[in-house]
């Protein structure tokens, strides 16, 4: 299933997330928004590497990858991204 979430969690700018989820796994995720991330290419590697992450480990994995890729985020947090992803999942469930 493909889910879309939009939100402005605490300490975050507006985030828009689209994720392709199969079973419990995130196959692909696109994290859009008016945040800043340095280096930008590092953030794109984080997005790509999130593929295959179990939903229940998403926040931890996002934070770990940001650290591994040495990405500094401004207006984006692991908990904020996880929150907006959850909004997307919930919206998909309620629209069925």
């Amino acid at each position, binding site marked *: 299933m493909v889910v879309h979430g939009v939100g402005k969690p605490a300490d975050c700018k*507006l985030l*828009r997330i689209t994720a392709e989820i199969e079973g419990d796994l995130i196959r692909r995720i*696109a994290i*859009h*928004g*008016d945040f*800043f991330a340095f280096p930008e290419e590092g953030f794109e590697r984080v997005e790509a590497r999130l593929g295959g992450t179990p939903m229940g480990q998403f926040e931890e994995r996002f934070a770990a990858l940001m650290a591994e890729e040495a990405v*500094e985020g*401004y207006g984006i947090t692991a908990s904020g991204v996880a929150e907006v992803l959850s909004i997307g999942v919930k919206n998909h469930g309620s629209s069925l």
Partner: protein
Amino acid sequence: MAHPCRLLETGFNTGAFNMALDQTVLEGVASATVLPTIRFYGWKPWAVSIGYFQGLEEEVDTQACSRRGIDVVRRITGGGAVFHQAEVTYSIIIPETHPLYRRKVLDSYELICQGIIDGLKGMGVSAQFAPINDIVVDNRKVSGNAQTRKLGCILQHGTILLDVDVELMFSLLRVPSEKAKGKLIEDVKSRVRGLKQLLGREVSFDETVEALKRGFQSALDLDYQTGDPLPEELKRASVVAQERFANPEWNQRR
């Protein structure tokens, strides 16, 4: 001792050319073929620029922009969508070896934004830095800024609002619904100010540029060397504009 800085005023150009020239100057500063550079410019035609991480069609009604002859361009910097209409845009590029370089992103935003604050003070406007990247007057935003770090340099660019046509802006940006649009328009009208509203008079592009030049000079201790872009910079910017910023592949990458 003041820091030598090339000063460029490149007038009004397309969105693609403006962003291409920022990138070209970044390349030149990185290779030390030009001095650290500050540039002031405008947009013609009017344009919407989006941040590096934004989704184009999520944020912009590209058909509405096309109908009105308004450019659309993706920046290399993050941040939000900006409608470039009545404003002055600046960019400043310094290498990481420069005394003005700050390792912490927030510190460098604050330092560079002081140039705008000093410039506005010279116009009789008392402004404050609002982290991460805004400048406000009585909590109302008058300037937004965006920074990237590439090729061993900091590039920061931003806008100082002269006036705000909020209705026109929201006819170009995506909003969830007409109901939301009405609320958003009122919200933005209350939270954003142009110099015209702040000073109660018309404020020209040129007057604002002069004030900002003085402000940056004072805040960052700059020794201006006024010039024009090099012929090779203009040539390179034309190529970059065509290959990247005017290319749908770039603008539609998210």
